[in-house]
């Protein structure tokens, strides 16, 4: 009969190990690796490594095909201390997966190294019902929904572009939404700015918008920012968010957001509209062009019609 020690030694001969820093580097580099947390669901919920999928050790052979169908997919496994996942990695090797790595020291060592961990609160019955249609989409699912609920999005402008965006993101369950706008609701806004309604004419747009979003989805933590974005406040504000949505209505703000988001490494979902025409693009620092790649400098003020 083999001892546990012998089984682990045997597994180590075929399964390479990497420490937390090396695995973090691979994730940050955008390597399409599949990270699997083989602990029990309650351990996973208590804290896990993004973007891990939880497949408990007992279900691994049954469910691995759903997470990695191609035997050449790079897979990293972890458990609490790195032992269970070592044995689990050996099983994947035996199943024919060629590129399996064990996270040495497991979740414990990862967390002790000060690397980021994520904690999920269990969804309540209302949330399970509210997001049930998302669960049906394989690309979203419960895991994606939890991620949305943990996401922080900053909306620049609560006007024509910001209104529908805020409502859709709130409905979808984006957990934290910064809503920034220095204007008040005008009657002439209401024909298109659907985040606001008639009784709110004259009130700050962020107040009106915050009420509307909370009424739509109480899961959303709205942070009202009743001020204009300026060169002095922009860096301090965007640092708290995962993503910025530019729904501004002027070139100064657009260029400011482009520059600030690039310098801060934040993806900027850009949109603009004029009369019957609109455009949209995603400005992701170092993954694609920025707004200045399209238009290096703002147009002179006189050229801009209102």
């Amino acid at each position, binding site marked *: 009969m083999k001892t546990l020690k012998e089984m682990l030694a045997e597994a180590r001969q075929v399964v390479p190990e990497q420490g937390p820093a090396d695995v973090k580097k691979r994730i940050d580099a955008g390597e399409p690796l599949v990270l699997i947390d083989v602990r029990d669901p309650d351990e996973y919920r208590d804290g896990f490594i993004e*973007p891990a999928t939880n497949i408990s050790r007992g279900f691994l052979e049954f469910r691995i095909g759903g997470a990695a169908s191609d035997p050449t997919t790079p897979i990293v496994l972890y458990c609490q201390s790195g032992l269970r996942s070592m044995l689990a990695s050996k099983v994947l090797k035996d199943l024919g997966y060629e590129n399996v790595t064990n996270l040495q020291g497991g979740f414990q060592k990862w967390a002790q190294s000060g690397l980021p961990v994520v904690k999920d609160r269990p969804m309540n019955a209302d949330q399970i019902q509210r997001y049930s249609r998302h669960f049906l989409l394989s690309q979203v699912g419960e895991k994606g929904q939890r991620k949305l609920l943990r996401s922080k999005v900053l909306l620049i402008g609560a006007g024509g572009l910001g209104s529908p965006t805020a409502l859709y993101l709130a409905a979808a369950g984006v957990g934290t939404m910064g809503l920034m706008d220095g204007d008040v609701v005008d009657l002439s806004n209401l024909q298109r700015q659907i985040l606001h309604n008639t009784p709110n004419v004259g009130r700050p747009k962020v107040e009106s918008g915050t009420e509307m979003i909370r009424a739509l989805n109480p899961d959303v933590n709205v942070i009202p920012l009743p001020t204009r974005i300026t060169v002095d406040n922009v860096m301090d504000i965007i640092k708290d968010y995962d993503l910025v949505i530019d729904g501004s209505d*002027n070139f100064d703000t657009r260029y400011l957001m482009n520059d600030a988001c690039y310098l801060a490494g934040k993806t900027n979902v850009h949109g603009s509209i004029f009369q019957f025409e609109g455009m949209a693009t995603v400005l992701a620092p170092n993954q694609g062009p920025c707004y200045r790649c399209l238009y290096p400098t703002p147009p002179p003020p006189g050229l801009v019609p*209102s």
Partner: protein
Amino acid sequence: MIQATEAIKVLLGIGEPLIGRLLTYDALGMRFREVKLRRDPKCPLCGEHPTITDLSIHRGAADACAVSDNGHAAPAEAPAATPRG
């Protein structure tokens, strides 16, 4: 709605976000067009030799939003008509 969808895709890391692509929309003709965008190696911000390395370029100009309701047209080389909140 396009911005919201793109935001969710980026947050979840799914699909193909509009990175390096400009989607234009003409409501009267009801036509969508896609323009490929490339990074400009000479870009003053994200190019090989950037001249903009902080936000100081935005100082000195008039208050960023003094022209709040005033910035709606694209520069001459714009592929399609443009901006307004």
